[in-house]
């Protein structure tokens, strides 16, 4: 019997042989792990993926779809890529939006699990015909964009592609998976695919799922689309996330010069207004999205005629964090990251860390100086080629620090190996907690704890146990968004979040869930992620921040100081609120 919103199956493709098999997923599983990050995590646990080196043939990588994909609900064309991360060794779930999600679900699968390792470069095709492995030597070495263009000529217009760039092929620890200019960006899922010699996953199909209440769904979808044109999403539409930069700078929470400062001298030049005044600007949307948050800016030098997508995080990581004050260099660096297929946050964080190592005499690379845009671009090129310093940079800041020694790990800007996004933990202490306990490391998309810091419910520079309990709620909401899946930029339109997301899921599935059921579902998803990490070898000492950020004030804001005891008090409060032991273990493993 079919399940509304689902096909009820996932396909496992073995890249070694090119063979595939289909397995069923029960409704009771979907009720706990409805899609996206949740379903991917569940399948990794089921396949014991925690046992394997993420870059080994035995590792698993899941493309997980969701019940909302293909529905008229705005921003629902999203998928998750879930695997053990080569950067952190822990769970990694990256999300992205594109027609790949729509085509992947129409292939008749709720998820596609890739395992094995091809002998030579290949693509894996999952469509209405038999799943097959095709040679891809002609694509190897191409950028993701060029490879996608070549695949578009090879296949029909119904096929869509998730592709790695050269960085993924070379197993750069923070390589992305790209599709239509979007990236499943963090944690190195591109390297996992590259280690399997898989250049691209190709999907197509005509299989649709049924909805429990089509009329109600269409009506609600229209309401949601209308709200998505309203003030709750206006910042994203009109300015893009780059609008955060001036605010963060004013509040001294814009990490600068490898987290040595919280403000940046040339921030005005990076505002959307200034960028827009100095160059051509266009806007675009992801598939099935009515918000249209993507702001692209022209690059004024060089030979490229492509516009580059600019977000707060890539400006922050490639600009202030490296103290590079030239917008042109930052835009070029961002474009180069896209071409290679590497995560901009980890790229900027790792290079900023290397710049400080040079400054301290720990690395003999005198050309790599804070503030030098040409050096930034050279370093990214080296990451792409693996030559010279690139061999170290492509490992990420934690692994670099472990090689360099001299306690450089104290200022490596990472948690669990994942480089920290653009939120200064000392000035945003609830977010500091979110970073410390995050299952995929320092991450602003799995914890929205900054929302607590930016509210009157907490003192952002004095973290407390009560703020920690509020942080749990933001993480629960993100877990639901990442599993239904909806874009987080839509979250502001919901008044009663869990009740309204329950309604959306009910319209699709007919399950009759309520607010409480959604909250329990969120808790179960976070528990499953934690279980995966525990099975990988997680211990409580991982839930912390770099030593630099503890027990000393931010240079340009003496009131921004986070001591170890305060952070630990918040972590304990967080763990207990989750129903875990005080030090963060589950009372019992779910998957036993």
């Amino acid at each position, binding site marked *: 019997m079919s399940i509304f919103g689902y096909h009820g199956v996932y396909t496992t493709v073995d890249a070694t042989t090119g063979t595939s098999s289909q397995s069923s997923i029960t409704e009771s599983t979907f009720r706990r792990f409805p899609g996206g990050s949740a379903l991917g995590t569940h399948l990794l646990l089921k396949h014991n993926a925690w046992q394997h080196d993420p870059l080994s043939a035995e590792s698993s990588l899941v493309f997980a779809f969701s019940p909302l994909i293909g529905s008229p609900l705005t921003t629902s064309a999203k998928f998750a890529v879930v695997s053990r991360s080569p950067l952190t060794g822990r769970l990694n779930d990256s999300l992205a939006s594109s027609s790949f999600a729509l085509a992947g679900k129409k292939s008749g699968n709720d998820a596609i699990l890739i395992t094995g390792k091809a002998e030579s470069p290949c693509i894996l095709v999952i469509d209405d015909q038999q799943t097959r492995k095709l040679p891809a030597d002609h694509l190897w070495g191409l950028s993701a964009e060029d490879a996608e263009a070549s695949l578009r000529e090879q296949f029909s217009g119904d096929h869509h592609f998730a592709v790695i760039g050269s960085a993924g092929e070379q197993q750069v620890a923070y390589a992305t998976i790209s599709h239509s200019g979007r990236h499943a960006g963090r944690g190195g899922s591109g390297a996992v695919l590259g280690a399997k010699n898989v250049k691209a996953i190709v999907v197509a199909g005509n299989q649709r799922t049924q909805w429990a209440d089509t009329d109600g769904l269409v009506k609600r979808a229209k309401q949601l689309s209308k709200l998505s044109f309203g*003030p*709750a999403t*206006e*910042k*994203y539409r*009109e*300015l*893009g*996330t*780059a*609008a*955060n930069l*001036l*605010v*963060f700078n*004013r*509040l*001294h929470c814009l990490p600068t010069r490898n987290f040595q400062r919280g403000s940046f001298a040339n921030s005005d030049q990076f505002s959307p*207004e200034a960028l827009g005044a100095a160059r051509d600007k266009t806007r675009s949307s992801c598939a099935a999205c009515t918000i249209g*948050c993507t702001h692209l800016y022209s690059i004024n030098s060089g030979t490229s005629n492509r516009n580059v997508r600019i*977000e*707060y*995080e890539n400006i922050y990581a490639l600009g202030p964090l490296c103290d590079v004050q030239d917008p042109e260099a930052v835009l070029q660096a961002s474009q180069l990251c896209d071409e290679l297929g590497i995560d901009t946050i980890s790229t900027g964080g790792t290079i900023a860390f290397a710049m400080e190592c040079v400054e301290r005499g720990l690395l003999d690379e005198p050309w790599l100086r804070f503030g030098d845009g040409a050096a930034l671009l050279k370093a990214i090129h080296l990451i792409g080629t693996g030559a010279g310093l690139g061999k170290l940079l492509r490992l990420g800041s934690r692994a670099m620090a472990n090689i360099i020694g001299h306690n450089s790990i104290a200022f490596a800007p990472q948690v669990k190996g994942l480089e920290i996004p653009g*939120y200064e933990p000392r000035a945003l202490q609830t977010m500091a907690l979110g970073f410390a306990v995050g299952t995929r490391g320092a991450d*602003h*998309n799995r914890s*929205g704890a*900054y*929302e607590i810091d*930016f*509210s*009157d419910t907490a*003192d*952002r*520079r004095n973290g407390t146990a009560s703020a920690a309990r509020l942080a749990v709620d933001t993480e629960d909401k993100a877990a639901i968004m990442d599993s239904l899946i909806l874009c*987080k*930029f839509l*979250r*502001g339109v919901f008044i009663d979040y869990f009740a309204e997301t329950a309604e959306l899921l009910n319209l699709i599935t007919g399950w009759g869930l309520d607010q409480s059921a959604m909250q329990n579902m969120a808790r179960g998803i976070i528990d499953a992620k934690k279980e995966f990490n525990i099975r990988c070898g997680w211990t409580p000492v991982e839930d912390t921040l770099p030593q630099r950020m503890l027990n000393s004030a931010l240079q340009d804001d003496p*009131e921004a100081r986070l001591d170890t005891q305060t952070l630990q008090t918040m972590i304990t409060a967080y763990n207990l609120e989750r129903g875990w032991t005080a030090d963060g273990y589950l009372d019992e493993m779910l998957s036993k």
Partner: protein
Amino acid sequence: MFVTIEYFGVPRQKTGVSSDSLSFANSPTSLFDVLTEIAERHTAFGEQCLTGDELSRETIINLNGDQFVRSLDTQVVNGDHILILSTDAGG
């Protein structure tokens, strides 16, 4: 008394200025009075800033770069800086 208003994001776009300096006869003055004055100066932003007698969901206010406030009864004194931001970070 004088207070400085700093606009960021959508509020800056709607007002068309990055800051205002406003004078008030009384010190302290309530945040409601300050926002009412801003709404009169910048109609397009004013429509969005206040929902009746309350701060709209989409507007965030910070006092002097320190605490965030939502209560419109918050008292503002001479020399204060009021930062008006769009909601939501991320990306």
